[in-house]
């Protein structure tokens, strides 16, 4: 049979799961829809502007990735949608009235410096969107901390908490009509997206749960109002913790691959965030905690190697006779 020449051969396995990098990124984008929509809605007079801001960061991310890869004669990877996710996450980490040109610089930093120079998708050691946020925060601090809600500049609930004069009701912090970056204000919107990711098994529950748990313990012990659950709830809902725990800390590339490592990574993030928020000069601490945690990942992995099958505790065997 001459057709034999046409047969394909390859190593096993010969079937593949339908999930791909692109479908995973798509799921993350879907999970971010509630948060994004609420962020735009919550921008008040800046609704159109914030939508434009999101559009600009996403386009800059995608185009800069495309351009970088074209210039360096690399295979383009914009179809995997990871640049879209980075762009969207970056926008969600900015105030709704953030200057566009600064946002463009942030997006370029995220894709070119943090992602592509390190080798593109999967190779970056820090979360691109968060690294860009920290970069913008340090470069344009006043613009990054100027939050407008209902037409007036207001401190975020976290800043109120830090100064000790909270006027924002907890309910608002949970629903999201408070000051803050585009994506961080609505806890409920983030939880809806997080539930989607957990149910679809896109993210592992270990990191966010260990993160939130260790952060809670830290705040209860070291916070200004010790063992005050309402104070803790404000810390959980009033800042970027939820967005960070479910959408940033769970970034595959910059989190440990080992099951135990994920727990330890989450605990470290929780402690660092608590440390930065309570003892640091700034009200917020999530982004720096995660970036710092990212750098520790190789070490965490090294000490959390799983027990290989057949090397665990000795099971009763045939030797007893």
């Amino acid at each position, binding site marked *: 049979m001459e057709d034999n020449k046409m047969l394909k051969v*390859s190593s096993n396995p010969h079937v*593949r*799961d339908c999930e791909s990098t692109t479908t995973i990124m798509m799921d993350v984008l879907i999970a971010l829809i509630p948060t994004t929509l609420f962020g735009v809605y919550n921008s008040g007079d800046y609704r159109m502007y914030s939508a434009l801001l999101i559009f600009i960061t996403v386009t800059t991310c995608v185009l800069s990735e495309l351009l970088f890869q074209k210039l360096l004669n690399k295979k383009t990877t914009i179809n995997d949608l990871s640049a879209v996710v980075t762009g969207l996450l970056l926008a969600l980490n900015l105030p709704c009235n953030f200057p566009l040109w600064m946002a463009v610089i942030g997006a370029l930093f995220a894709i070119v410096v943090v992602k592509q120079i390190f080798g593109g998708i999967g190779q970056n050691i820090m979360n691109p969107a968060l690294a860009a946020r920290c970069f913008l925060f340090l470069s344009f601090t006043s613009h990054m901390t100027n939050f407008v809600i209902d037409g007036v500049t207001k401190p975020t609930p976290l800043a109120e908490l830090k100064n000790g004069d909270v006027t924002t009701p907890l309910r608002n912090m949970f629903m999201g009509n408070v000051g803050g970056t585009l994506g961080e204000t609505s806890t409920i919107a983030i939880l809806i997206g997080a539930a989607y990711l957990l149910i679809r098994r896109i993210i592992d529950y270990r990191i966010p749960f260990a993160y939130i748990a260790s952060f809670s313990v830290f705040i209860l012990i070291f916070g200004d109002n010790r063992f005050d659950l309402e104070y803790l709830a404000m810390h959980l809902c009033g800042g970027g913790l939820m967005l960070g725990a479910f959408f940033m800390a769970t970034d595959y590339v910059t*989190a440990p*691959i080992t099951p135990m490592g994920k727990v330890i990574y989450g605990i470290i993030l929780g402690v660092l965030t608590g440390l930065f928020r309570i003892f640091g000069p700034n009200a917020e601490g999530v982004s720096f905690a995660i970036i710092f945690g990212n750098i520790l990942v190789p070490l965490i992995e090294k000490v959390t190697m799983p027990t290989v*099958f057949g090397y665990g505790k000795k099971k*009763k065997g*045939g030797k007893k006779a």
Partner: protein
Amino acid sequence: MSVLTFRGGVHPKEGKELSKSAPIRKVLPGKEVVLALGQHIGAPASPTVAVGDYVLVNGKVGAAQGAVSANIYSPVSGVVKAVEPRMMANGLKVNCVIIENDDKYEKAKDPFKCDGSKNSILNAIKEAGIVGMGGAGFPTHVKLSPKHPKDIEYIVVNGAECEPYLTSDYRRMIESPEVIVEGLNIILSLFENAKGIIAIEDNKMDAIIKMRGYIKNYDRISIKTVYTKYPQGGERTLIKAVTDREINSKMLPADVGCIVNNIDTVCAIYQAVKNNQPLISRIVTVSGDAIKNPCNLEVCVGTSIADIIEEAGGFKGQPEKIISGGPMMGTAIFDINTPVTKGTSAILCFSKDEVAKHEASNCINCGRCVDVCPAHVLPARLALHAEHGNVDEFVKMKGLECCECGCCSYICPAKRNLTQSIKTMRKSVLASKKK
């Protein structure tokens, strides 16, 4: 009734419905029968016939060499045309005895006898040339002769059939449960302290119910339902599921008091001990979307794969990939004019190759491979060390524990060929260790 399982594994599309309801049909070999002398683990058999000799059905054509080896018998009568290296399905050239089938099927007198004593049972299994028919092809008489037979507590019959598309074991359980139970009983007679377990995945409830009806009179045999998940039928994962004992790659099942046998192997043991019948045929599932009539065939060893595809109605459209064995662990074949061996569990023909459809991209560190790995190693890291030729790190991270089941490549969203990289490195490390 609890459903037993292990940690890790994947759920590929089963595809068993294609051939599930097709009863086993016996197929006679074609004009030329190619009997490979090395179709088992261990030393190849040495030919006992020469060109021009006339052989009969059940006539020995290859004699086992050394302790780990197996005899080879002819399934046809005819003249030996050649003794020469021929291509096998996996692409390797192996010395073969080629017989011109005269279609008379004249039978030789029984090549061995069994009087029911332990020694004669083991001798019959050895003489019959029985090897593990799940694919590995380890000589069964060696497996059944552990150092301390009294320490064996469980004889596990592997009816999990976790590979997608495969239905040959299922058909055996439905059509001849009594042979399986009696075959297991024969093995149990060798190990006085052992219990017999027939492990079946819970997607074959009818087989479980049927088999239960046949074990009533055997108080040492029980049926255990295992969770439908690949690789549930792997030796290590199956032992873990039914006995909660773990073995690593350096151990044998006997080290934890277990011996695992494939369904077809148990049937072959029955035939050898009860009917003095050497191993000359096996059940092969012929399936896949490019096969006209997916079916389960009883095929003589040495039959050309092209012939049995013809028996299954031939191709429906142009196949792009043909696999010998299951889609998870089987070998892609490039020439269908190669013979069926004792380890050929299936011939699967697909009109589209799922592997070629995807291009591998960067690892995104998602950890899915870690979640599904039944050996609990880190496939993504091992594959990287393998690709970089980093032998020391590969060994340190227990790369040799990989069972090559394919779960990591299957699940990888970046479509990386993790199994291939790890497998290649593993083979080279093991080969250099042997030196």
